[in-house]
């Protein structure tokens, strides 16, 4: 195969998800009545914010060659912490500040610290104790969710202060501020992955951990940072979710893990590690939201969403395998 052909094929493989997104949007716009309008697209972006942020953390850990199944539960715990402390009805304690806007940094900080701590525990068990990341984070996925149910007693907290709700209500160009926070996160972490030493080291550890270690990269430290970041970012996602729903319930965000997982894989991140970039992950999230929106518009019963998501995860892993086969033939 010629060099130029290989280049273009590789370009398509690297950015496959964007082509898929465009194709899916085009098909739905043509086939589903009232799909093609600015409000729908704004809605897709809005829906993508929480899942998108959660996917960033998951992607960082998978790119480094590991796994973090705890992101969904960590997000729920962060949301519940925000709900219990700052919501005014239900089990909420309704803590307020003067001036009132201080609730924004306070709730965010508490959430991120909680998420970072769980991430640090995951990282410690994986990196220092040398336990399998899948098992460690599966355990966290279960016990953190248990903690959410236990602290809330299965009940919910409602009515967050207007100063926080502002972020979900106030719109700029038809899109709420929370969605801009998600986009900012994607821009920031994409920059980190592409332009800084930390990002480069994460990528290389995912590619060949032994080589990175031999070259003097502090593999343990970098992996630890990845797990802490994943926890903290998941907490940020939970905080956004609490703001969006103005509170928290014990089963908030249940099932999001698999959507995040699907988005990351569809977005071009290889489960083998060392491959993938965050812009693609955002496209993966947008793709999922586009499909959800189409299902809603077509009036299919909501149960089918789960069936379709399940098939999407399968399709995503299949796609990953297929891409690896094609790449091998290219090499």
């Amino acid at each position, binding site marked *: 195969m010629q060099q130029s052909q290989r280049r273009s094929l590789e370009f398509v493989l690297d950015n496959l998800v964007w082509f898929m997104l465009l194709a899916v949007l085009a098909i739905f716009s043509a086939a589903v009545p009232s799909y093609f309008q600015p409000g729908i697209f704004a809605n897709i972006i809005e829906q993508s914010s929480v899942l998108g942020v959660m996917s960033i953390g998951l992607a960082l850990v998978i790119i480094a060659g590991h796994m973090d199944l705890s992101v969904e539960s960590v997000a729920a715990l962060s949301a519940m912490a925000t709900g219990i402390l700052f919501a005014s009805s239900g089990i909420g304690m309704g803590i307020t500040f003067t001036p009132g806007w201080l609730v924004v940094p306070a709730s965010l900080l508490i959430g991120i610290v909680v998420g970072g701590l769980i991430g640090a525990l995951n990282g410690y068990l994986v990196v220092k104790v040398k336990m399998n990341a899948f098992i460690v984070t599966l355990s966290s996925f279960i016990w953190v969710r248990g903690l959410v149910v236990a602290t809330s007693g299965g009940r919910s907290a409602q009515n967050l202060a207007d100063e926080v709700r502002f972020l979900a209500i106030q719109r700029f160009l038809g899109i709420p501020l929370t969605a801009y926070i998600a986009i900012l996160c994607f821009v920031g972490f994409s920059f980190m992955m592409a332009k800084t030493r930390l990002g480069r080291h994460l*990528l290389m550890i995912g590619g060949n951990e032994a080589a990175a270690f031999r070259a003097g990269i502090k593999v343990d430290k970098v992996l630890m940072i990845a797990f802490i970041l994943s926890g903290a970012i998941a907490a940020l996602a939970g905080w956004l979710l609490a703001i969006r729903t103005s509170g928290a319930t014990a089963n908030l965000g249940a099932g999001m893990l698999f959507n995040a997982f699907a988005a990351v894989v569809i977005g071009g991140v290889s489960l083998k590690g*060392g491959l993938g970039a965050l812009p693609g992950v955002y496209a993966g999230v947008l793709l999922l939201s586009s499909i959800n929106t189409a299902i809603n518009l077509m009036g299919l019963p909501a149960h089918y969403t789960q069936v379709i998501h399940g098939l999407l995860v399968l399709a995503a892993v299949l796609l990953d395998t297929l891409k690896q086969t094609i790449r091998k033939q290219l090499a």
Partner: protein
Amino acid sequence: MTDQLLVLDKVTKNYGAVQALRGVSFSIGKGEVIALLGDNGAGKSTLVKIISGGLEATSGSMHFEGGEFRPKSPSEAKAAGIETVYQDLSLCTNVDVVANFFMGRELTRSMMGIKVLDERRMEEQVAAAMENAGTRIPSLRTKVEHLSGGQRQAIELNRFVHWGGKLVLLDEPFAALGVEQTKRGLQMIRKVAAQGIGVVIITHIMQQAFQVADRMVVIRQGVVAGDVPTKQTNADAVIGMITGETLTGAGPGEGVGE
């Protein structure tokens, strides 16, 4: 003789009751290429690990550039200027040539207080290093997975030449390479040696040893069974030393036996 770079004196290594090395003595000069030969289990790998810091010797001494040398970890040996190229290459195939070249030592520049990778400066330096070594790689931005075995080997060799390695240990570096690639790799080794770097190459293939080495050091049952300049021996004599049939052609007294 050239300046002595590394001198081993009666180095031994015991694994419990098993004596893997029973007193190995030889030396490596600057710019010298030594082929380390021996049958499986002769103790070659143990010896390389002791020099590269992976294992500690039980007794005996090493001197590197005239000073006492006893590395406790690979990073310590690396800091002293000893680089090891392993059988399985130490490259991340998922990133490009430049990223591999600067692995763990990336150059950065400050952009609004944030340290950003300085890709252009890194690429310039890699291009210069590759040109110095006479290695041609079509694009330094190609992912390493698309490069041939020989090109990968060249990257790895150029990498430590660039970073100021003084001694290179190559553990069966051509095990997976084809004829043409091996030939290029051997040329590469001569170029490295011409820059004053000492090279120790472990190989099973006699022909390679004769093509590239200045001196043959044969290890048998944990001792140096032969230490001869390449020009003064031949394949049959070396095979004899490896299998222990004969000691003819063994070096001038130095380091033979205990």
